[in-house]
C-alpha cells in the first residue's frame, strides 16, 4: 500500500515528465504546497519533520539522537532523493530507484539498529517505572518511532520494512492507547473507544484508579494470606510441641510398662526356681525313702529265705539234732516273726497337691494399673502481686510421677507472740495445684502447707510456706494535698496496722471522667508522702496503693488535684494560739477577746510572739502566686518565711522572712516591705483590698501586687537558700482570707 502510494507519484511523474517537462513539475509542486501532501519538496519535508520533533516534548533526551538521525536521514535524502526526483526526473528514475535503494539500505539499517536497540533496552528497564507513569515511556518512544517512520515515509515516499520491524512493535501501539478501564468488561480500553465502541454504555474508570483498586485488592489478599501463613506456622509449631509431648509421654509409659513386666517376669522366674528346687528335693527324699525301704525289704527276704532253707535242712536232720535245732530254730523263727515287717510304702507315690501362691504376682500385675501413694508436694513461695487484701493464691507442685486425686491445703495465721497457742487451722480440699484462699485479713501473714492424696493413700505434708495478704488501701489526706502548676505533694495514711513495703501513686488526667485509665504511676515510695510531677492547668485524679510481698492493695479513694496555680493550706502546727483557722484552712481569724490571754510558751514550730501562721507551700522551685483578701484598715503582715524562721520574733525582723506590713494609725496607711528590719520608703495611694503575692524561685524574687488594679507594689530581690512558706500575721483583730489555686494574672508575669 505504502509502497504503491510512494511509488505512484514517481511513476506518474516519470510518465508525465515525458510529455510535460517543466510545466507539469511546477504545477505539481504547487499542488503539493497547497495540500501538504506527503510528496513535498525536500525543504518542506525537513520543516515538517523538525516541527514535529520540537512539538514533541516527551522523551526529550531520547529525542535528541533521533533528531540527529532525522537530520542524517534528510541529508541522505538530499544526496539521493533530491537528485532522483528533481534533477534526474525522466527515464533514469526507474533505473535509479533500485540502485539507490541498494546503496541506501545498508547505512540505514546500521544507523537504525543502534537507536532501536537502545529504545528497547530503555523500554525494558523502564517497565517498572511504567507502573507509575504508564504514559511517559511508551508514548515517548512510540511517538518517536511514529515520527521517525513518518519522516522516513515522507522523505522516501515509501516505508522501510526493516525500519519498522526494529522500531515499532505494533501491538504495543494498541496498548498505549488504553487509558481507561471498563469496569463492565473488566478490560482496559481506550478513552476514544469508550466513546464510540461497545463500551459506550459501560461504566469506566481511569486506568490509574482501576490499577490502584486492583492493587489494593491484591494487597488485602496478600495481607490475609500473610496472616494465614502466620497462623499456620503457629499451628504447626504447636503441633510440633504436641508431637514431642505425646512422644515423651508414650515413651515414659512404655518404660513404665517394661519395668513393670520385667519385675513380674523376674518374680515368676524366681517362683519357678523355688518350686523346681522344692520339687526336686521332695523327689529325692521320697526316692531315698523308697530305696531304703526296698533295701530293708530285700534283707528281710533274704533272712526269710535263709530261715526256710535252714528249716528244710532241719527236716532232713535226725531227730535229736532236729529237736535241738528245731528248738533253736523255733526261737529264731519266733524272734524273726516277731520282728514286724514293714510293708507300708513309706512315700506316697502320687504328687502331693501343691497349691501355687501367685498372690504377689497378682499384686504386681495389679500394680501396673494402680499407683503408689503420692510423695509430699512442693509448696511454692508466694508469687509477687498474687494477693489481694482478703485473699492469696497459693500454688504448689507435685513430682511428675505422682498421681494425685486431690490436695488438702491447710493454713493458719502466723502469730509472732505465742506459738503455743495456735490459731485455728483451716483445711481446704482442692483438685488443682493452686487455690485462692479468700476471707483473709489484709496485710497479714499466713502459713500454708499441703498434702496430696490418691486412692492409694495420703502423702506427707509439704514444707510450710508463708503467704501474705495485700495491704488495705491507704487513705489519702485530701486536706493536706498541696500543689502547684508542675507538681503535687500527696500525703496519706497507711491504713494498715503492720507496716507495708512501699506505696504506689497512680495519676489519671480527669479530662475524661469515664476513662479511669491510669496515665502514670510512681512506684516504690517508702513513706506516706510523695511529690509527683504534673502538667500545668490540668485536673488529675490521684490514687494510692500500698504494697507488700503479697501485692498491691486496692486503690485508695481518689483525690482530685488541679494544677492551676499553687495550692496550700494554713499549717495548724505553726498557728499562734490567738488565731483560728477556718475549716477549709484558707482563712485565719484573730478575734477580739483572746487578746487578753497571756503570752504562750516559746516554741520552735508555733508562732508565739508575732500572731502569725504559716501556709504549707509545696516545696517546688518555680513560681507560686496567691492572693490575700485584707481589710483596708487592718494591721497585717503577709509575705514568706523560711520554715525555721524564729517564732519568737516579728516577721520581717530578720533575714528569715520577707513581708509586706500594713499599719493603719490615725487615718494614715503605712506600707512597709520588711526584710531584716529595713524597708524601702514606698507610698501607695490606692490601698489594696486584695494583695497578690508572687514568689519566684527562679529569679529569686518576691513581688507584691494590688490585685484589683493590677498594680505592682514592690519586688524583693532575695536569695532563697531553702524553701519558704507563705506567712500571715494579724497585729489587730480581723481576718485574712487566702485565695490560691488561681492562675497567675498576665500583669504579674512582667515581674
Amino acid at each position, binding site marked *: 500500500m505504502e509502497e504503491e502510494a510512494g511509488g505512484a507519484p514517481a511513476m506518474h511523474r516519470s510518465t508525465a515528465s515525458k510529455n510535460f517537462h517543466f510545466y507539469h513539475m511546477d504545477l505539481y509542486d504547487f499542488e503539493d504546497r497547497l495540500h501538504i501532501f506527503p510528496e513535498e519538496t525536500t525543504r518542506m519535508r525537513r520543516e515538517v519533520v523538525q516541527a514535529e520533533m520540537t512539538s514533541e516534548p516527551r522523551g526529550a533526551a531520547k529525542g535528541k539522537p533521533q533528531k540527529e538521525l532525522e537530520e542524517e536521514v534528510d541529508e541522505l535524502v538530499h544526496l539521493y532523493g533530491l537528485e532522483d526526483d528533481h534533477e534526474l526526473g525522466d527515464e533514469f528514475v526507474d533505473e535509479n530507484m533500485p540502485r539507490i535503494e541498494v546503496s541506501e539500505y545498508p547505512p540505514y539499517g546500521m544507523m537504525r539498529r543502534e537507536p532501536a536497540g537502545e529504545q528497547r533496552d530503555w523500554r525494558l528497564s523502564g517497565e517498572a517505572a511504567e507502573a507509575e507513569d504508564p504514559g511517559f515511556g511508551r508514548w515517548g518512544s512510540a511517538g518517536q518511532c511514529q515520527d521517525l517512520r513518518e519522516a522516513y515515509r515522507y522523505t522516501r515516499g515509501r516505508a522501510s520494512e526493516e525500519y519498522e520491524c526494529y522500531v515499532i512493535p505494533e501491538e504495543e501501539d494498541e496498548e498505549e492507547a488504553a487509558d481507561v478501564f471498563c469496569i463492565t468488561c473488566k478490560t482496559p480500553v481506550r478513552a476514544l473507544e469508550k466513546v464510540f465502541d461497545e463500551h459506550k454504555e459501560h461504566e469506566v474508570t481511569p486506568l490509574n484508579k482501576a490499577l490502584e483498586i486492583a492493587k489494593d485488592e491484591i494487597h488485602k489478599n496478600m495481607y490475609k494470606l500473610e496472616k494465614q501463613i502466620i497462623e499456620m506456622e503457629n499451628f504447626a509449631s504447636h503441633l510440633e510441641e504436641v508431637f514431642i509431648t505425646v512422644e515423651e509421654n508414650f515413651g515414659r509409659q512404655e518404660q513404665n510398662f517394661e519395668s513393670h513386666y520385667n519385675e513380674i517376669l523376674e518374680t515368676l522366674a524366681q517362683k519357678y526356681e523355688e518350686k523346681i528346687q522344692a520339687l526336686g528335693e521332695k523327689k529325692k527324699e521320697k526316692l531315698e525313702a523308697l530305696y531304703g525301704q526296698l533295701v530293708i525289704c530285700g534283707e528281710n527276704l533274704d533272712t526269710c529265705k535263709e530261715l526256710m532253707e535252714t528249716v528244710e535242712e532241719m527236716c532232713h536232720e535226725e531227730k535229736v539234732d532236729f529237736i535241738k535245732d528245731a528248738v533253736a530254730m523255733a526261737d529264731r523263727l519266733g524272734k524273726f516273726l516277731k520282728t514286724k515287717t514293714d510293708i507300708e510304702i513309706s512315700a506316697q507315690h502320687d504328687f502331693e497337691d501343691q497349691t501355687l501362691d501367685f498372690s504377689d504376682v497378682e499384686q504386681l500385675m495389679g500394680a501396673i494399673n494402680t499407683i503408689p501413694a503420692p510423695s509430699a508436694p512442693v509448696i511454692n513461695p508466694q508469687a509477687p502481686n498474687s494477693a489481694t487484701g482478703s485473699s492469696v493464691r497459693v500454688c504448689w507442685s507435685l513430682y511428675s510421677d505422682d498421681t494425685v486425686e486431690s490436695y488438702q491445703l491447710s493454713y493458719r495465721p502466723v502469730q509472732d507472740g505465742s506459738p503455743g497457742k495456735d490459731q485455728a487451722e483451716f483445711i481446704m480440699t482442692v483438685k488443682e495445684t493452686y487455690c485462692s484462699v479468700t476471707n483473709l485479713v489484709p496485710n497479714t501473714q499466713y502459713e500454708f502447707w499441703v498434702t496430696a492424696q490418691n486412692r492409694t493413700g495420703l502423702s506427707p505434708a509439704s514444707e510450710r510456706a508463708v503467704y501474705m495478704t495485700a495491704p488495705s488501701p491507704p487513705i489519702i489526706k485530701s486536706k493536706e494535698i498541696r500543689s502547684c502548676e508542675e507538681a503535687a505533694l500527696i500525703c496519706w495514711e497507711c491504713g494498715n496496722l503492720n507496716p507495708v513495703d512501699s506505696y504506689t501513686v497512680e495519676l489519671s488526667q480527669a479530662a475524661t471522667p469515664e476513662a479511669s485509665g491510669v496515665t502514670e504511676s510512681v512506684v516504690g515510695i517508702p513513706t506516706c508522702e510523695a511529690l509527683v510531677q504534673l502538667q500545668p492547668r490540668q485536673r488529675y485524679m490521684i490514687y494510692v496503693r500500698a504494697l507488700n510481698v503479697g501485692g498491691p492493695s486496692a486503690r485508695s479513694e481518689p483525690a482530685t488535684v488541679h494544677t492551676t496555680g499553687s495550692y496550700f493550706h494554713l499549717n495548724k502546727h505553726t498557728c499562734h494560739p490567738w488565731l483560728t483557722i477556718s475549716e477549709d484552712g484558707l482563712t485565719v481569724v484573730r478575734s477580739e477577746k483572746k487578746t487578753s490571754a497571756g503570752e504562750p510558751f516559746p516554741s520552735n514550730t508555733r508562732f508565739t510572739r508575732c500572731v502569725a501562721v504559716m501556709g504549707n507551700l509545696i516545696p517546688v522551685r518555680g513560681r507560686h502566686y496567691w492572693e490575700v483578701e485584707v481589710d483596708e484598715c487592718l494591721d497585717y503582715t503577709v509575705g514568706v518565711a523560711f520554715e525555721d524562721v524564729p517564732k519568737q520574733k516579728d516577721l520581717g525582723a530578720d533575714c528569715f522572712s520577707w513581708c509586706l506590713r500594713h499599719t493603719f494609725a490615725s487615718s494614715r496607711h503605712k506600707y512597709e516591705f520588711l526584710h531584716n528590719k*529595713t524597708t*524601702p*520608703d*514606698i*507610698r*501607695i*495611694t*490606692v490601698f489594696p483590698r486584695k494583695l497578690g503575692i508572687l514568689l519566684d524561685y527562679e529569679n529569686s524574687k518576691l513581688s507584691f501586687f*494590688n490585685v484589683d*488594679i*493590677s*498594680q*505592682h*507594689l*514592690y519586688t524583693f530581690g532575695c536569695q532563697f537558700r531553702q524553701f519558704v512558706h507563705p506567712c500571715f500575721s494579724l497585729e489587730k483583730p480581723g481576718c485574712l482570707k487566702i485565695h490560691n489555686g488561681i492562675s497567675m494574672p*498576665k*500583669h504579674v508575669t*512582667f*515581674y
Partner: protein
Amino acid sequence: MLRPPLSILTASPSAAAAGDKKHKPVNRRRRMALKQISSNKCFGGLQKVFEHDSVELNCKMKFAIYLPPKAETGKCPALYWLSGLTCTEQNFISKSGYHQAASEHGLVVIAPDTSPRGCNIKGEDESWDFGTGAGFYVDATEDPWKTNYRMYSYVTKELPQLINANFPVDPQRMSIFGHSMGGHGALICTLKNPGKYKSVSAFAPICNPVLCPWGKKAFSGYLGTDQNKWKAYDATHLVNSYPGSQLDILIDQGKDDQFLSDGQLLPDNFIAACTEKKIPVVFRLQEANMICFYCVGNGILNGYDHSYYFIATFITDHIRHHAKYLNA
C-alpha cells in the same frame, strides 16, 4: 488635619523600619520631611536621631527614636520620654541606659527635645530654667512665646502623628514617662488625655509646678499671671478633675535629691491628691542601702539624687512598668 494625607503616604511598617532613605521622600510637601542625623546599632535595634520642621513650634526640631529588633517584623508600642530642664534629645539616649530593656520588651522609645530652639526670641537663652531647654510642655499663650513654645501640642499631637506615620508603631499603644520637668510633662499629658496613654511613670517629677519656683517662673512667663490657667498644666490639680479611667502611675524619687528638699518637686502634694481621688500611684522614695562613712562623716549626702545616675538605676523598672500595659 495632617493625618489623612500622612496615612496615605505612609510606607509599610517594614519599609519604614528598614529603610533610612525611604523616610526622606515621605511628605515632602507638608514640611514634615525627616532628616536622619544619626543611626547607631544598639542591643539589636537602632538608635536614631532625626530632624524635622515642626509645624507647632515653627522651627527645626530633633528627636531621638529607638527601634527595637522587633520593629523589623511588626508594629511595636511607642513609649515617649520627656526630658528635664536643659536637656536635649541626647541626654536620655546617652545616659539612661534604657536600650536593653526597650529591646527586650520590644518598645519603640521616642525622646524629643525639651523646647524649641533657635527661634530668636528675646530672652530665650537668658536662664536655664526658662526659654530654651525649658519648654515645660505647655502651649504658651503669652507673647513672645506663643508662636513657638507649644511643646504640649507638639508632644501630644504633632510628634505622635509624625511617629505613627513614619515608623512601625501601633498608634493604639502608647505610653509616656519623663524626668523632672519631663516627669511633670508626662503626668499632665496623661491626666489631660484620659485613655490616650496606656501608662505613665516619672522620675523625680515636678508634681505641683504652680507651687514651686520653677513652675511659677515658667508658667507666669508662658501663660501669664492668671493662676487658674496654670492649673491646667499642674499634675496635682489635674488629678482632681481626672475622670478616673484606669491609670497606674509609678514615680521614683531619689531621697537625696536637692530639688526635692528645695521644694521644686513636691511629690507629697501629688500623692495626697491621688490618695484622695484613689488614683493608683506607687511612689518610691529611693535611698542607697550602702552607707559611705566618708560621706556621713563629711556631711555628704549619698542617696539617689536628681541625676541620670538615679534614672539609670531604675529605668528598667519603668520600662517594665510600661511594657506591662503596652504589651498586655
